[in-house]
């Protein structure tokens, strides 16, 4: 009974020794416990403001947007690089889509073209990194700057208002009683999981990140799949840009600032390895929830936003340290003494 229930739950719970059924990986358990502890602490401290439906819905909206970016970022991380231009991409997509909608394109067309813009940004990143062998840092740093410049240029450095009502509403709407942002994140998450787990492309992205040389020798078309990973990353940043634009109701070139580092941080907290080849979406989801709960709680507690940043930074490094301790890497330096 217990076993079959666990199997149905998808990931499987801790099961009989001998490994029948899958187990919750240790990393996920640790993050989940941290989330639960935080929720309990905040609920007791602020029963009137934290433990409310309003806060929960708000967190779902915030987490939804962040999760879409973080999933995109995970593709770039797993293939062995990263993308720090996702924040700028969000801003660019925001103003491109707004411009289209304000010049009488349909909302649907504008959204589609907006996502395509994000994918195009990602594709350019991918071409630079995979084909021309520019390091991911330099390429996406260049893109960060260039895309932000382009976005501000299109928006004349200002804010674009008067977006169609239909567009502005979808970011605040509830779908089936759930905030739309969370629904979109869920759909994106399921598709991303399918791509990573159920397609050859997903396998190749893991293989390239895990050992570029092995993938090359095995005959994997490396350039193509690296480009694909960055394109997916860009497209998801585009979707997140649209979600954020709709939520705040205005388009802005500077929209999405901060998401580049936040997306890397949440993915890494969730167990995605910088350097590639390792990472699960379940971990990324939990990483996003952890950061969202933490920042929301600190907000409610009235903690200075700068102090919040410090806390987030410490959580990031702490999570990686905990992960390393689990795999016994922390004291490697000391243990290897005497070896060449």
């Amino acid at each position, binding site marked *: 009974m217990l076993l079959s229930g666990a199997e149905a739950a998808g990931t499987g719970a801790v099961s009989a020794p001998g490994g029948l059924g899958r187990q919750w990986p240790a990393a996920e358990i640790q993050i989940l416990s941290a989330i639960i502890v935080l929720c309990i602490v905040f609920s007791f401290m602020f029963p009137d403001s934290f433990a409310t439906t309003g806060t929960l819905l708000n967190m779902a909206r915030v987490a939804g947007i962040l999760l879409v970016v973080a999933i995109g970022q995970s593709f770039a991380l797993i293939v062995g690089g990263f993308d720090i231009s996702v924040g700028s991409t969000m801003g660019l997509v925001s103003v491109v889509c707004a411009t289209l909608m304000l010049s009488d394109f349909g909302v649907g067309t504008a959204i589609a073209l907006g996502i395509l813009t994000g994918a195009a940004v990602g594709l350019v990143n991918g071409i630079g990194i995979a084909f021309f062998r520019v390091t991911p840092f330099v390429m996406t740093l260049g893109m960060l700057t260039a895309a932000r410049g382009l976005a501000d240029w299109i928006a004349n450095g200002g804010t674009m208002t008067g977006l169609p009502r239909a567009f502005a509403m979808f970011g605040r709407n509830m779908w089936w009683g759930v905030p739309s942002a969370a629904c979109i994140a869920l759909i994106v998450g399921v598709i991303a999981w399918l791509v990573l787990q159920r397609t050859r492309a*997903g396998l190749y992205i893991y293989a390239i990140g*895990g050992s570029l040389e092995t993938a*090359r020798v095995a*005959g994997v078309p490396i350039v193509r799949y690296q480009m694909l990973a960055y394109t997916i990353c860009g497209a998801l940043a585009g979707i997140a840009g649209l979600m954020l634009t709709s939520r705040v109701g205005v388009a802005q070139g500077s929209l999405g600032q901060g998401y580049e580092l936040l997306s890397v941080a949440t993915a890494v907290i969730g167990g995605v390895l910088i350097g590639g080849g390792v990472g699960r979406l379940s971990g990324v989801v939990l990483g996003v929830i952890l950061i969202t709960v933490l920042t929301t709680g600190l907000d409610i507690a009235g903690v200075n936003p700068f102090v919040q940043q410090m806390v987030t930074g410490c959580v990031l490094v702490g999570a990686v340290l905990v992960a390393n301790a689990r795999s016994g890497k922390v004291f490697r330096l000391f243990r290897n003494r005497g070896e060449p």
Partner: protein
Amino acid sequence: MTVQRHHGPILQLEGISKRFPGVAALENVHLELEQEQIHALLGENGAGKSTLIKILTGVQKQDEGHIRLAGHPVTISTPKDAQRFGISLVPQETLVVPELSIGRNILLGIESGMASRGALSSAEQVQVEAALDKIGADFDVETPAKELSVPQLRLAQIARALLQPGSIMVLDEPTAVLSEPDAEHLLERLDALRSEGQAILYVTHRLSEVMRLADRMTILRDGRLVGVYSRGEIDRDEMVRLIARDVGTRTGDQPTKTRDLPPVARDAPPRLEVTGLTAERHFADASLSVPQGRIAGIAGVQGSGHGAFVRAIGGVDPVVSGKVCVNGRSIGTGSPEHAARHGVLTVPADRRGAAIVPDLSIRANLAISGRIRAAARRWGLRWHDKERAVMEGYIADLSIRPPSTETKIAKLSGGNQQKLALARVLEGSADVLLIEEPTQGVDVSAKAEIHALLRRVARETGCAVVIASSEFEELVGLADDVYVMRSGRLGDHMTGDTTTYHKILEKALP
């Protein structure tokens, strides 16, 4: 501690033993090195030479035995200890920081006092130039390391060893990757260093070199000392005989039976035909032809280029010129992706770096094969239960332990990893399989299984298998044709039924 001039051997190894789980790497080995002596350490791959050097330079510790320096017993437990006792190692690989000048590279980590990234101070320059002079290097100390050739880097490494205090120099295969003239030049320099009082212990495969140069030679076989000789005491044939393992009682010296060879259609083009393949610094003008269903072995000692040759056929390493044809059609060179599309798959020797993805599961590692069978897929998607069924077949077939498809491949033993690396190319249903050192670092039973697997694959699927190996024993009895590569030249083709271990060894040693 400085070693004073002293009569008798400067370095004595007494009764050194070292055991690894399941194997004795060294068994009661003695060695005496004197001042002004070039001492050659000879033996086949796996004879224990590297282990002995690792013990001498503090990388590993012996289980039994003593080391004496100038008569005093010493304990060498770290590489720093070895340095302090005046033992300097010239390693086999030429590792440098390419962007720094060669002078900076030579001094890296042994600078005295303040050091900067920039030009050498005048004192440093004098010091480095003196060392380079001694070994006859003619390049400027400020040349960036990336602009130097391999022989020049080798000289720089020796200069670095000379700068460290002490008079014992250990060279690990200094001439392995050098051409004849470059090796010749290097040996002249070793000769000169000897006259200046250095004691030189060096590991090599090149017997002709040893005959001319070494004052004394110590021969190891299977971790045991089999003889110590002075120059002129034994000839080349005798040396080969001593280096050779005693394989008469094992299957290794039985020539391949040609009876079970599949018939080859006379008018059909060979499965694999390589013409005039040349790669910079590794091998030149190598040609071979393998019919379907046959196994060709490329034998060579370390540094002879046999592994690079096989990798180049598979497009893994770049080539300068030459042609590779599969079933009579040219497939081009230089791209493993392209080669794979024509059914040419490679398993390189660098297992962890280039043959498996350590962090992925067994199943994912096998599924990387671009030509995985249709039964594992539906609608172009991966289906985990279908994949598992296919992979479980391999796991049972190859007796992989633990028998789970979801274990991370990094957690498996080397033998199991190698079997799975082979399984992946088998799943790719190749026309040509290229395998470099198929049983390197693999235990005896896994070795036998891998050999059986390769034989079965060739016979049953008709694919042409090319095996590069520096373990000659395994080629005998496995390969239908054996080619020997020596210093980048492929020659001396032998058919399986005439091949013996001794013949290969005789031809492979430069």
